[in-house]
């Protein structure tokens, strides 16, 4: 019985992997691939936010701006100095992480909604820098003609080719995230989130881990930014702001705060729904608002909690059946 289910599981995984790998082949049109690429980039962002906030309890609403830091690092290095993608990627990640560490410095002094507003404020300052320093960043017009990456002379310039690059990045990001949350750092983060004072008393270097949480989210945002700049070939400051951070927060909430699969599920759900609900135009946005409130009030753990609850229900249901049986037997034994 057990063997059979594990074989089934592996077949299922195999099918999913094949489908994911072959996706550009059976996608109906280019646009679908484009949407999926976009989803990949947002998954990186929501993984970053989930590690910092869901595990580390550190609000980072400057995430949208940090995404911009990564994107502008890549765009400027590419258009001004001709630096290729493969060098921009680590540089963008470092830039995002460093900037995030600075954004996280106030977390030594302030917490909860105060930290939230401080990170919002610092994010807006970064965004204003992108808008106002027009000699450097091109101002509100942004930067265009960012060259796509190439691998040994093979240009990764179409959505189909980019799909695999983004896929690899997302898988890497997910695996690295799992390593982070599953080990020492993850345990320290959870201790920090659940009880700050107790974590401190247990000898967790709270300051270090707070900054680390910010830096990790910044690194993910930086990677997403570099990918976005090279993929889209055009960037402008209008998406690198607070609103994007809010969208990522919504994705994480709907998927499941403090769960990496939740990040993936939430992002896919929101962006796919976005495509299907486009016919409703503005009402779709109202629907998002309602969805957020419903999730918060009834399933604060998001989709992941919903699945878990369903699992528990099934367990209890089957457990209940056997219990009932034994109860009946007991009753029969009583004279």
């Amino acid at each position, binding site marked *: 019985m057990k063997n059979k289910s594990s074989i089934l599981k592996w077949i299922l995984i195999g099918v999913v992997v094949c489908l994911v790998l072959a996706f550009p082949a059976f996608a109906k049109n280019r646009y679908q691939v484009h949407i999926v690429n976009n989803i990949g980039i947002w998954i990186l962002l929501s993984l970053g936010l989930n590690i910092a906030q869901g595990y580390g309890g550190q*609000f980072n609403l400057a995430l949208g701006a940090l995404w911009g830091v990564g994107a502008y690092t890549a765009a400027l290095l590419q258009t001004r100095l001709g630096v290729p993608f493969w060098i921009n990627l680590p540089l963008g990640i470092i830039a995002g992480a460093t900037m995030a560490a600075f954004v996280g410095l106030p977390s030594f002094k*302030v917490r909860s909604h105060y930290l939230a507003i401080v990170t919002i404020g610092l994010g807006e300052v970064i965004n*204003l820098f992108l808008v*106002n320093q027009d000699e450097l960043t091109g101002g509100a017009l942004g930067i265009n003609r960012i060259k796509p990456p190439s691998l040994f002379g093979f240009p990764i310039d179409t959505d189909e080719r980019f799909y695999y690059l983004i896929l690899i990045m997302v898988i890497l990001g997910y695996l690295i995230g799992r390593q982070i949350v599953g080990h020492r750092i993850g345990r320290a983060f959870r201790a920090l989130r659940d009880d700050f004072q107790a974590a401190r008393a247990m000898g967790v270097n709270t300051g270090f881990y707070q900054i680390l949480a910010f830096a990790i989210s910044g690194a993910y945002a930086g990677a997403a930014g570099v990918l976005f700049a090279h993929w889209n070939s055009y960037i402008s400051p209008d998406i690198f702001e607070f609103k994007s951070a809010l969208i990522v927060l919504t994705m994480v909430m709907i998927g499941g705060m403090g769960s990496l699969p939740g990040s993936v599920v939430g992002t896919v759900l929101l962006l796919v729904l976005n495509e299907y609900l486009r016919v409703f135009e503005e009402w779709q946005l109202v629907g998002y*608002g309602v969805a957020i*409130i419903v999730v*918060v009030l009834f399933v604060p753990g998001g989709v992941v909690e919903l699945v878990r609850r369903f699992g528990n229900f099934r367990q209890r249901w089957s457990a209940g059946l056997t219990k009932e049986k034994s109860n009946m037997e007991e009753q029969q034994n009583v004279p």
Partner: protein
Amino acid sequence: MNTTSIFLQTIIGGIGIGSLYALIALGYSMTFRSMGLVNFAQGSIYMVGTYFGIIWYRGMVMGLHVPYAAAFFIGLLCNVLLGLLLERIFRPLAKLDLMLMLLATIGLGFILDNLFTIIFGAEGFAVDSPLSNTPWKIYGIRVLPQMALLIGVSAVLMVGLQLFLSKTKLGMAMRASAVDYEIARTMGIATNRMNALALSIGCMMSAAAGILAAPIVYVAPSMGAAVGLKGFAAAILGGLGSIPGAIAGGLVFGVLEALSSGYVSSQWTKAIAFIVMVVVLMVKPSGIVGEITIEKV
């Protein structure tokens, strides 16, 4: 014009926009002190209140051109009702984790913003001032009559609120329920009703700010986002939950903004205001008035 009068003019402009922020900040603080909830939809409530009043004034409802003063009171009344409704929605939220609360109020703001975009369209409109558009000259300082009205009515509202909270029995009951919910309940205060009242007052203040400022700023469904954020920054600056703090924070924030746009660079106005806020939080997290101590690390 000499430098002194330019300086004074900048200060007056700052006080005008600062009264707007102060009224919004009062909304945040009233909600926070009664329910322990940071209402990130406050900016949207400000926008909604503005529309509730201005649509009557501009004759957008059945072509009725209501006088400005009447439209003002209609807007206030509508937002008071909105506040009563919001208390029902927020009641289950007050027990939740901060992040969930924050997200739910953001969701609510999202709903309001987009509903009003659907009803009134994304493009906004300019509103004519009921007073004349030629500025008064006082000792060489030019002041728009609408700006004077904004400052004057805001001052009356703020003083009125302070008197209401400190002198009337109802106001004292509200303060009691804000200080200790459980004890206030045992003393026979209907705490839920006090929360509803606090929220309504907060919403009313936001509507007043919006309708008074409408002829100066531009009215659009997206008008709440930036003002909401600045109002929150102002509330934090003064000390979240404190009424005098919200007023002081709003005025300081407005004046700072005006000074930075007048003397440094108008592009960096927003950044400078936020940087000051971050610095204040780092140095004195309880805000400049510092009535209520907050959790420090």
